[in-house]
Structures are given as structure tokens and as C-alpha cells.
């Protein structure tokens, strides 16, 4: 039996979802693109949290949610105008609610100064309208979370059912349907025979019978719908929720115009809504909606799709990971099988080739599907960024608006978690350093409100995320000056604008003269870069004077697979991640340069790059091979240090499944992980970053660096 802690954990998970929907709703209200349903949704979210919190005795949360809910209720009943000030309070309330939930999760009962402040503001909003009896004392009681929303008294519905010929033809019986309804609640059925023609005109193809049912039930609406599930295509059906007050004695025909008035509660099951013109005469079969209704129906169905409850199941990540592992195995086994069959010379057989192709395709599809399970929309990350921007804007006193695009872009679950920190940092950086203050903006003829755009998209098998501001752009002279002062670049070195921009990513670079509370925390953009690189991604920066700065992050779709170059070192095959590779080349005698007894460097585009013989470094070969006979791969580390890796050959480039070495052995210097090749052998994945860092701290290499500078 699950214990109380399990329920609490469930409650917190639900809270996360509810907070999410509250924040989304509030943002919709921001845009002005909202209707009453949005307000209802926000209200319901807050209300559900309050209910759950009460069950667990989380008093602070209950008290705050209650006040928040009261204010929202006023909005619902039009007793409160939605001014930008009110909106701002609501946003802060939603943030505070998130904080309270988080505090409750950590069992941190410390007082929230912010909460008290917000409670006062809410109090002002609510003003005298609040009735004393609203202060309900919540008695903790056991309740099922999923039942919170539908705790309602009996609802009234007006159902009208007009069967088409098909309903009779398919052997359905209206009486049976009405009987099924009776099981759910009480019915009051009226037969409406207005449309039945006189006997002389009667035709079997035009049944005119219609039933109006006044229905009371405590069953949720979808259960009512399910009664008609099998006949919805062959009848005209409307189920309309009726307010208790007006339901009394009102079992008249529900006209579409009246039904539309009920807006959110209305559910139409037919694809051809009964339009006013059609109700007059006998029906002809087939959908024939008026153009206007169709458009409306599309809008409402799009809306419904958005707000519809996502049919999801919660599965532990470990289970998905296990599945993922096994799929990896399957792909490897498939490759092995292919090789064995090739070796046996059976590939010419059309049947074998066909079956093998089928297997390969299937394995690939399964792999993609499982990756899709792990994939999550970036929405959850972007959601959080709204708050970060709000807080950053408050701290700097700037007016900032966030625009998000492509929130539905999906990336691997593990990646989502690890993206939050670097993105937070970049957003803060953009608000603090990117956007100008109000005075400067006004002088430059820009709107006072700065815009931060957060967008995501899939581009050529990778995910691209952009953070851009419409600020002043990078002050390159200033950046250069600072970099020179701090000794990060040589004085007077020739740098392209792009190179100057990337100086921002160097460790120890902080351009703002005064350290601000917000982003001047000694953590620079170098951290962002390091974290993104750890995810197998890259960060780029582009800026145009006066028009703003854009940070572009590109990420692999998953952390489980890596695009690698297969390289040959004596008798061993190793993998070099493609992300670090700048170029590959066959060295020319003229471009090589000896330094001392064993040091070697490559002259490449005016730069001297130290050569590292990987075979010797990894101990695969004792005697160094001739550089002239080898292939050189120029790689770059995060700090823009470069090295040329000397390998025997490059023979392929492919996606490899990453396997941990640490699980059964331990860490190997210069190696990040292992993978399994098509022949079932293990190949090590090289960590170019570590190799460059360690090899260039070698005394030999330092001499090369000196030569390069002189």
C-alpha cells in the first residue's frame, strides 16, 4: 500500500503541472488572447492546489492560494478589472505559489517576506468585496487528488438527439440510448415530433423524430458523451450544460444560438452542427455546415486540442533508460548480423538482403520511437525563463517582454534539465548587459520595452536554441580593450569582429565595469559555454551594433548517441567526437615544423598548432609514426586552444551509442566513454578537450606556444 509520502510526492508532481497551467494561462491573459475559460482554468489550477495542500496540512500554501483564488474569482465575476498592475501582481503570485510549493517539498517552513507583501497586495485588490465567511477553515482529510476538480453537485444537461437514417439502419435504438442515460442520472424525456411530415409525404429516408432530454447527473460530461460514442456519426446530438438556476423547467428545444451562448460548457459531438437554417425543414443526409460555423468549429477544435487533457502515463526514467539500452543492443546486433552475413557472402541472395533491410529499418524506427519517448518539449524550460526575465527586469529596473517561439521543439529529457542553468545565465546576461536602459533606448528611438526572444527549432538533425535581445549589440572596442587589459589577447592582435565577440566566452572575462547584483557574480559566459559543450553542443554569438545580440546554441538531439569519426591507431579503432573537429588534412612537408628532439607542429592558416601522436599517447605504438604518412585532425578546445591529432587513418563517420566505462572499470584519462562497433568490438571514445588541455601543458608544447607567439 502506498504510504502518505507517496501521496505527497504525487501531490507535488500534480502541483508542478498545475503551476505550469496557471503560468500558461496568466501569459495568455497577458497577450490579451484570452477568454473566460482561461481565467477559469487559472482559477481551477489554484483551487486544486489549495485543496490538495489542505489535505496535507500545508497551511501557508493554503492561505496564499486561497487569497489568490479569491482575487481570481473576482476577476471571473467581472468585479475586478484586468489592468497591467493586476496582471503583474498575478504573475508574482504565481511565482510565489511555485516558491511555496518548492518550500513545502523541501519541508522548509521559513517565512516568506514576499508572500506577506503579495498577500497585502491581493488584499488591496480584493478590498471590501471579500466576505468574512470566505475564510473557511480547512480540515485536513484524505482525498483522491484526481477527484478534486469534479467535486460538484448534480449537473444539469439539455440533450437533444435526432437520429439520422443510419442510426436505425445500423441497428441502434434510441430507446436503448436513453435507458443507458438513465443509469447515469435522472432523465426527463420529451418527444419532439414537429419535424415528422404528414403520412403522405413520409419517406423512410427522412426520419423526423427527435428527443429532448432534461438530464441530471453527477457523472462527468465525458461519461455522458460515451453513451453516444457509437452513434455520434449518425445522429444530430447536442449536449449542453445548463445552469442550475435556469434549468428549472427549461426543457425546450436547444437552439444552436442558445447553445453557443453557453460557450465553454458546450460539447458538440456531431461534425455537422445543427445550424439555424437546417432545423426548419427535414434533414438531408451528409455534412453541410454553413461556412461561418465551420470556421468557428475549426477555431474551437484547435482550442480544444490545446486545452484537451493530454493522454499520458507516468513512467520512471530508469525503465525508459533500460529500454533505450536494449534498443542500443539491438542496433549493434543488427550491425553484427549484417557483417556476419556479408562475411559469409550471402548478401547476394535477394531474400537475405530483403530481410536484412527490413530488420535494419525496423531497428532504426524502434530506436527513433524510444528516443521520442525520452524527448520532451522545451516548453518546460522556456516557461521558467519567463520568470527569470521578470525577476531580472525587476532587479535592473528595465521593462522587458519575452517572446518565445518553437516551445514544442523536443529534446532529450536529460538535456532539458541541464539546459536550465546555462539558459538562465544567458537570459540574465541579455537583460543585464544586452538591453540598454530606458534613457538610452529612448534616445535611440527604440520602444521603452526591450524584447528578449527565445526560440527553438530542429535544424539538420540538431536542436538550435536562440536567445536574442534587441539591445545595443556588443561594444567591440570595449570588449577588446578589456581583453587586452586582462591579458586575454595579445596587444594589437588582428581580430575579426566574430573573434572579438567570442572573447566574451573566455574565462575571467566580465565586461561590465560595475558588478551588478544580477549577473556580475563572477560566473561568466565561459560557464555557459562549458555546460553547453558538456552536452555535446556549441554556443555562438552574433551581434550587430545598435540592433542587438543573438546567442545561438546547437545541441545534439540526445545524449545517448554521438556523431563520431572512426579513426585508426595501429591495430585499434577509436572514435573522435565530430563536434570538436575543425578540419582534417594530409600534412605537406612544407607545413610541418620540428621543435627540438620530438616536438612537432603544424603550420595551418598562419598558426602553429602542436601535433599530438595519438597512437603514442595512448600507448598503442611504441615508436612514433612518420607524420608525413599520417592524417592530421585539427581539433579545438573550449578555450580556443588547438591541437592536431596524428592518426593512421580515418575510415568512417557514424553515430555511435555511448557506453560508460566507469560502470565496470573506472575513468581513463583522455577517454570519455566507449562504444560497440558493428563487429561487436569495443572502441574507445576520445575526449579531445582533456587531451588538448593535458598535452599543451606538457613542457615541450609550451615551447611551441612561445614560438607561435614570437
Amino acid at each position, binding site marked *: 500500500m502506498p504510504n502518505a509520502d507517496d501521496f505527497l510526492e504525487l501531490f507535488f508532481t500534480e502541483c508542478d503541472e498545475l503551476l505550469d497551467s496557471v503560468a500558461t494561462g496568466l501569459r495568455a491573459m497577458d497577450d490579451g488572447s484570452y477568454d473566460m475559460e482561461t481565467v477559469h482554468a487559472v482559477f481551477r489550477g489554484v483551487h486544486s492546489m489549495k485543496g490538495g495542500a489542505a489535505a496535507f496540512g500545508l497551511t501557508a500554501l493554503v492561505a496564499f492560494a486561497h487569497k489568490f483564488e479569491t482575487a481570481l474569482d473576482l476577476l471571473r465575476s467581472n468585479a475586478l478589472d484586468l489592468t497591467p498592475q493586476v496582471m503583474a501582481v498575478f504573475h508574482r503570485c504565481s511565482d510565489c505559489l511555485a516558491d511555496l510549493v518548492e518550500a513545502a517539498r523541501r519541508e522548509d517552513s521559513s517565512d516568506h517576506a514576499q508572500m506577506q507583501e503579495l498577500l497585502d497586495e491581493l488584499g488591496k485588490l480584493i478590498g471590501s468585496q471579500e466576505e468574512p465567511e470566505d475564510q473557511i477553515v480547512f480540515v485536513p482529510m484524505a482525498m483522491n487528488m484526481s477527484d478534486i476538480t469534479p467535486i460538484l453537485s448534480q449537473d444539469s444537461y439539455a440533450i437533444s438527439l435526432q437520429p439520422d437514417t443510419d442510426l436505425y439502419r445500423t441497428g441502434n435504438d434510441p430507446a436503448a440510448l436513453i435507458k443507458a442515460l438513465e443509469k447515469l442520472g435522472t432523465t426527463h424525456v420529451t418527444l419532439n415530433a414537429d419535424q415528422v411530415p404528414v403520412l403522405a409525404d413520409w419517406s423512410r429516408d427522412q426520419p423526423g423524430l427527435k428527443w429532448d432530454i432534461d438530464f441530471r447527473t453527477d457523472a462527468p460530461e465525458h461519461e455522458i458523451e460515451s453513451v453516444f460514442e457509437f452513434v455520434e456519426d449518425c445522429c444530430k446530438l447536442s449536449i449542453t450544460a445548463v445552469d442550475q438556476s435556469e434549468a428549472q423547467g427549461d426543457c425546450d428545444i436547444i437552439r444552436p444560438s442558445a447553445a453557443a451562448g453557453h460557450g465553454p460548457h458546450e460539447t458538440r459531438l456531431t461534425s455537422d452542427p445543427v445550424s439555424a437554417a437546417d432545423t426548419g425543414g427535414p434533414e438531408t443526409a451528409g455534412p453541410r455546415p454553413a461556412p461561418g460555423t465551420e470556421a468557428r468549429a475549426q477555431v474551437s477544435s484547435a482550442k480544444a486540442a490545446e486545452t484537451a487533457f493530454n493522454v499520458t502515463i507516468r513512467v520512471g526514467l530508469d525503465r525508459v533508460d533500460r529500454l533505450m*539500452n*536494449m534498443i*542500443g*543492443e539491438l542496433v*549493434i546486433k543488427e550491425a553484427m548480423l549484417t557483417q556476419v552475413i556479408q562475411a559469409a557472402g550471402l548478401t547476394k541472395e535477394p531474400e537475405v538482403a530483403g530481410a536484412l533491410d527490413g530488420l535494419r529499418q525496423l531497428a532504426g524506427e524502434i530506436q527513433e520511437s524510444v528516443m521520442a519517448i525520452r524527448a520532451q518539449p522545451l516548453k518546460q524550460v522556456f516557461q521558467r525563463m519567463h520568470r527569470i526575465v521578470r525577476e531580472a527586469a525587476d532587479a535592473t529596473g528595465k521593462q522587458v517582454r519575452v517572446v518565445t517561439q518553437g516551445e514544442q521543439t523536443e529534446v532529450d529529457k536529460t538535456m532539458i534539465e541541464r539546459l536550465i542553468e546555462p539558459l538562465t545565465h544567458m537570459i540574465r546576461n541579455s537583460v543585464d548587459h544586452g538591453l540598454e536602459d530606458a534613457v538610452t533606448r529612448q534616445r535611440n528611438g527604440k520602444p521603452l520595452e526591450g524584447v528578449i526572444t527565445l526560440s527553438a527549432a530542429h535544424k539538420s538533425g540538431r536542436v538550435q536554441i536562440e536567445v536574442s535581445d534587441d539591445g545595443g549589440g556588443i561594444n567591440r572596442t570595449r570588449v577588446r580593450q578589456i581583453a587586452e587589459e586582462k591579458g586575454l589577447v595579445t596587444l594589437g592582435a588582428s581580430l575579426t569582429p566574430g573573434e572579438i565577440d567570442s572573447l566574451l566566452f573566455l574565462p575571467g572575462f566580465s565586461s561590465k565595469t560595475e558588478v551588478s547584483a544580477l549577473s556580475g557574480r563572477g560566473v561568466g559566459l565561459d560557464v555557459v559555454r562549458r555546460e553547453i559543450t558538456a552536452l555535446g553542443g556549441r554556443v555562438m554569438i552574433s551581434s550587430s551594433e545598435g540592433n542587438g545580440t543573438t546567442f545561438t546554441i546547437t545541441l545534439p538531439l540526445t545524449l545517448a548517441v554521438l556523431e563520431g569519426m572512426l579513426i585508426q591507431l595501429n591495430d*585499434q579503432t577509436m572514435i573522435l567526437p565530430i563536434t570538436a573537429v575543425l578540419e582534417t588534412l594530409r600534412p605537406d612537408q612544407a607545413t610541418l615544423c620540428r621543435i627540438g628532439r620530438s616536438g612537432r607542429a603544424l603550420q595551418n592558416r598562419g598558426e602553429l598548432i602542436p601535433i599530438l601522436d595519438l597512437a603514442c*599517447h*595512448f*600507448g*598503442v605504438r611504441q615508436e612514433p609514426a612518420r607524420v608525413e604518412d599520417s592524417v592530421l585532425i585539427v581539433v579545438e578546445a573550449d578555450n580556443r586552444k588547438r591541437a592536431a591529432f596524428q592518426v593512421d587513418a580515418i575510415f568512417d563517420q557514424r553515430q555511435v551509442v555511448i*557506453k*560508460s*566505462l*566507469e*560502470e*565496470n*572499470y*573506472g*575513468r*581513463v*584519462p*583522455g*577517454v570519455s566513454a*566507449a562504444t*560497440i562497433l558493428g563487429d*561487436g*568490438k*569495443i*572502441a*574507445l571514445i576520445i575526449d579531445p578537450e582533456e587531451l588538448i588541455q593535458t598535452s599543451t601543458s606538457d613542457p615541450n608544447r609550451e615551447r611551441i606556444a612561445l614560438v607561435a607567439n614570437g
Partner: protein
Amino acid sequence: MIHNTLGKHDVVVFKLADQDFCINIGLVREIRGWSPTTMLPHAPDYVRGVINLRGSVVTVVDLSARLGFGKSEPTHRHVVIIAMHEGRIVGLLADLVSDIVSISDDSIQAVPDIAADPSQEFISGMITFEDGRILRKIDLEQLLPDPARTGN
């Protein structure tokens, strides 16, 4: 004869340089033929490399090198004993597996104090039989490369 009564347990017997060694059968997952390994850079000389065991990366330890008999030259007749120890899987390269025998706990004797032989620290006990056969019981924990130490 394999039966597990109190105070008895089964061991897998294998040969290394004409000496009989054994390991508790509970630790052994499977026994496979030798297959070429992928070398690990900067690894101690007794670490043969890694092999693919149905998708897991498994380290193969050359028992002969570890016990001081010198590096073995594995052929297809050599075996790799796959053992599980504290959640880690390891392969042990041996000349051949000869037997599974049941030994009683009280038949295990302490290792005579022969200083300066590298094998000593990896053997936890000796079992002598009436026919003169002697089994040396391997202490897996001592044998394995220390994960903390391979980090440097």
C-alpha cells in the same frame, strides 16, 4: 557431486600455470572463450582491456599477470570467467576451467606465510584434498583494479 548443505559451498576450479585456483561459484556469471580485447590506455599491465558482453563494457583481468606468472599469450583455448563483484562485472582470463567442486568451509586453511610472492595477497585460503590436489582460493576484491586508482 553438488549439494549445498550448511557449511559447504561450490567453487569453480581453473588452472593457471599448472596450479589449481578456485573462486566461489556464486560470484561467477558465465564462462566464455577468449576473444580479442580493446586495449585501455594507461591501464595497469594486468588489465587486458575491455570486451563487449551483450552490450556491457567488461574489463578483462589477466590472472596470470596479476598473480605474478607473467603476461599470458591467450589462444582460443583460454577462457574468460565472467564474475560479478559488488555490482561490477569483471572478466578473469585463465588457462582453462577444469571442475566444479563442493568444499566445506572448515577445510579451508590459512595461506602459509610465504613472504614476497605477489600472489599471496590475492589468495584468501587453501584447500587440500586427500589425493594431494591443492586449490588456491582467489580473493576477488583484492584482485580487481581499484576504480579510484585508475582515475589517475
